[in-house]
């Protein structure tokens, strides 16, 4: 986001230019569009296709899946909304934005569900299937008309559209075909390229017969034409010129691609939402690049399996989410103690316990860093974007192997299913790990010859003549012999800890986004980056001196963060994990439980870091974060 004043003018109704004799065309900087239906009615396919076309036209996009909690919720139910939210912009869109500007709904009940969760902007445009108005079941008619009347009374701009009725001219199963009709509608509404849409439809149905492709292209055309004849709404979002090829994938697919590109060859897992879809894709293709996915009997076994594979060869990975992460902790301690490289990916969801299994939260930072017994140093890093979901597994493997320790990579449910294009990576040979070292160990070398300064040692792998030793989770000396004497135990702890310092020396000072000094610094980590940056830009555009800092490395943290914080009057983290609210009666400075990153920053830098958090299972919205920043600036 560079110029946010432009956003408000461009998105402001009054200033929209009217083209004489033509439908009014509103030029927009960005728009948030939702397409929702009962599950199985194809709203997701429609949304994904619309987003792909937008990406091809050079728009920035961010898409979010709308998934009901149940696999097959009853039809026309308030909790049953299934579909997609797409934010389209003339810039690199880095988050899902605020509430929706336009919603296409296949029935009024799923729409009502979205209204109740606060997903719609006041005055939002609604394109609503109207077949329910003429339904033979009078209860349905009543539900439809009362909802319609209420929405209109509440100021929503509702357009009733005879979707299935029009589709009937082209298909005998309009319920299954109307998603492509809607795609055609949106194509016209947003001035998209119809030819690209035809290609997209052909691609979507590539495995189907020519008849099916044909019928869907007709439906697409019908939607396009219907808008031309009946609706006087038009939007135009200027597209950015882009030189490079991009890939459009969800965070979990990106993660899976990153794992394959990292040279790791074994991924052991146990199914858990929202991590599973990464394993689904990996299971499908990993063997093509010489790897495999092992579905173990539980998370503990998955972690043990990955550790065994790492020990005998190259670094392996285990993917999970919060509850599974908790189960793996004892073995993560073993990997730290015995100094075995291991990558653990935690796609965070709401907790504790089973919590909000399909929704986003950043509740696992402290368990990632401290979650096992004893002192078990590991590196923890967090992906902030879909692109980082690709690159960070490569980094994680490198760190794990260079320093012989566990590396935790945090992503979350928001990144897992969201899609955002990024430049197609150029694969590098050195990402693919070198072959397993099987050379003989020179006489006199010990399996834990810790370097006194860095704590590093050369790992011996089975198969290496002369390297025989028994690796153990018990306290051990340089020869890996069990040792209970006080000095040896401290020697091990010291060297394992030193490795984090050695690694920390390789990190560069993170960059601040916004004013170099000023009234407020907002610090964040993980998937909130795009939202926080956009919010900070909004407030800066109002003349305030604020900035944000986003941390990729949470353990250890780079040097220089303390100095950065000193340049601002106030520092506050914005996170999606629980922090006590100061206006709660019992909460004071003696008992307030801060959010995770705030704890860490306060402890290390002795700075009075405040925190603002939201844990509603939804991605943060730029507008709410901007409001929080304004409040913080006026309060003090």
């Amino acid at each position, binding site marked *: 986001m560079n110029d946010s004043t432009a956003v408000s003018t461009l998105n402001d109704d009054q200033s929209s230019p009217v083209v004489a004799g033509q439908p009014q065309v509103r030029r927009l900087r960005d728009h948030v569009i939702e397409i929702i239906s009962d599950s199985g009615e194809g709203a997701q396919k429609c949304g994904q296709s619309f987003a792909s076309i937008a990406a*091809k036209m*050079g728009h920035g996009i961010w898409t979010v899946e709308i998934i009901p909690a149940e696999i097959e919720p009853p039809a026309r139910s308030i909790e049953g909304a299934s579909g997609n939210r797409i934010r389209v912009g003339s810039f690199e869109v880095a988050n899902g934005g605020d509430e929706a500007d336009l919603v296409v709904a296949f029935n009024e009940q799923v729409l009502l569900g979205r209204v109740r969760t606060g997903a719609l902007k006041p005055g939002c445009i609604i394109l609503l299937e109207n077949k329910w108005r003429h339904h033979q079941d009078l209860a349905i008619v009543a539900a439809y008309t009362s909802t319609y009347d209420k929405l209109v009374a509440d100021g929503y701009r509702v357009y009733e559209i005879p979707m299935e009725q029009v589709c009937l001219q082209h298909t005998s199963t309009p319920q299954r075909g109307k998603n492509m009709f809607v795609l055609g509608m949106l194509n016209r509404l947003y001035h998209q390229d119809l030819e690209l849409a035809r290609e997209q439809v052909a691609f979507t149905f590539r495995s189907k017969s020519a008849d099916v492709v044909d019928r869907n292209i007709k439906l697409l055309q019908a939607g396009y034409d219907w808008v031309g004849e009946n609706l006087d709404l038009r939007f135009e979002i200027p*597209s950015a010129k*882009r030189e490079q*090829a*991009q*890939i*459009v994938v969800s965070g979990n*697919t990106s993660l899976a*691609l990153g794992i*394959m*590109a990292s040279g790791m*060859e*074994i991924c*052991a897992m146990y199914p858990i939402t929202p991590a599973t879809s990464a394993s689904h894709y990996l299971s499908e*293709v990993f*063997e*093509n*690049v*010489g*790897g*495999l996915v*092992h579905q*173990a*009997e539980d998370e*503990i*076994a998955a972690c*043990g*399996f990955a550790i*065994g*594979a*790492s*020990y*005998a*060869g190259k670094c*392996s990975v285990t993917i999970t989410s919060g509850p599974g992460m908790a189960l793996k902790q*004892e*073995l993560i301690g*073993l990997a730290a103690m015995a100094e075995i490289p291991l990558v653990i990916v935690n796609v965070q969801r709401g907790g504790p316990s089973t919590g909000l299994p399909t929704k986003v939260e950043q509740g696992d930072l402290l368990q990632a860093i401290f979650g096992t017994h004893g002192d078990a140093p590991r590196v923890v890093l967090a992906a902030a974007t879909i692109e980082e979901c690709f690159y960070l597994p490569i980094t994680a493997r490198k760190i794990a192997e260079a320093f012989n320790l566990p590396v935790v990579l945090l992503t979350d449910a928001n990144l897992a299913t969201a899609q955002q*294009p990024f430049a*197609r990576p150029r*694969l590098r*040979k050195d990402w*693919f790990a070198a*072959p*397993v070292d*099987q050379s*003989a160990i020179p006489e006199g070398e010990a399996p834990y010859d810790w370097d006194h300064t860095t704590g590093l040692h050369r790992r011996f792998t*089975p*198969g*290496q*003549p*002369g*390297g*025989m030793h*028994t*690796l*153990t*989770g018990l306290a051990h000396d340089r020869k890996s*012999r069990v040792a209970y004497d006080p000095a040896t135990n401290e020697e091990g702890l010291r060297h394992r800890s030193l490795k984090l310092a050695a690694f920390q020396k390789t990190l560069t000072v993170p960059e601040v986004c916004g004013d170099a000094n000023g009234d407020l610094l907002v610090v964040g980590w993980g998937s909130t980056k795009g939202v926080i940056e956009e919010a900070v830009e909004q407030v800066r555009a109002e003349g305030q001196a604020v900035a944000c800092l986003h941390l990729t490395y949470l353990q250890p943290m780079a040097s220089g963060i303390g100095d950065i914080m000193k340049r601002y009057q106030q520092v506050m983290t914005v996170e999606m994990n629980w922090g006590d609210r100061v206006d709660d009666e019992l909460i004071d400075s003696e008992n307030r439980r801060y959010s995770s990153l705030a704890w860490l920053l306060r402890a290390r830098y002795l700075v009075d870091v405040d925190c603002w958090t939201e844990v509603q299972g939804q991605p943060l919205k730029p507008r709410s974060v901007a409001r929080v920043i304004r409040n913080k600036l006026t309060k003090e």
Partner: protein
Amino acid sequence: MFDPIEVLSPSVSDLDDEAYSLDDFEGVDSRWCHRCGNNAILTAVQKLCAEEQLAPEKTVFVSGIGCSSRLPHYMGTYGFHALHGRALPVAEGIKIRRPDLHVFVTTGDGDCCSIGAGHWLHAIRYNMNMTVLLHDNQIYGLTKKQVSPTSPRGLVSNTSPHGAHLEPLNPLAATLGMSNISFVAHAVDWVPSVLCDIIKQAFHHRGLAFVCIMQRCPNYLPDHFEEYIKDPERMVLLTHAQGLQVEDAVAKRFKHREEHDPRDIDRARELANNRERVPLGILYRNPDVLCYEDVRAGVEHLSVSDKISALEREFDKFTVQPPS
């Protein structure tokens, strides 16, 4: 799938003139109690390694936590002394990555049948090529005499001062009840020649060979196995042309002997379930059972450029070209 070794290490046949001796398989000195049954098991595996001329660098002993799980430290091979109950998943990870390594697992009755019980059942089903030795002393040794799932009913321990409440879990019957089993045997530490023979056959079996060994714990359960040692009614020796063949001198020590075809699963289950007269020998063997690593190792070794082209093809699926 993987190319396990890209640097050749000398194979046994190159080493005729410097063949491995028993000493090569000795690690640090054993700290087990005097007369502990684990010593016999250690000797048996060291003997196996020497007889089979296993390259020490190609051999890995994996264990959990317990007295019995100390065994890897006493070997001159590679060893992985993991966590309580977690030896099997670690061993599976090693084997999938490195089918070229000889993998052994040593585990206690608490380690295998209690905290690691889930892994145990699944390991049987994965049937990866490894030898699993269950040191069944029917007590928790390392943590000083607590009741174990295999402790007989009534056994007095520090956590069952009035006697164990339940009937014991029977590791042989449990294993034989699993699917995809391929090798199940029962041995005792006090008949070392039979122990050695069984371990040898277990090692040569392709698949997961599960050997349950009655192991004496002189410290906490001094006379616990005496009835089996003294009373000829309590054991039956299983022999067969396709199973164990025992020298007459040894066989004569057993009043009850049975010709048991190790392919006969029904009889194997009957023998396993007879707590009055426990079997000694190979209860079940089926060399044709599917091994997990075989069905998962379908992909040929790929060069880095092959991998890169395969990955590029994946990227193609998701690529959006810039607007023209």
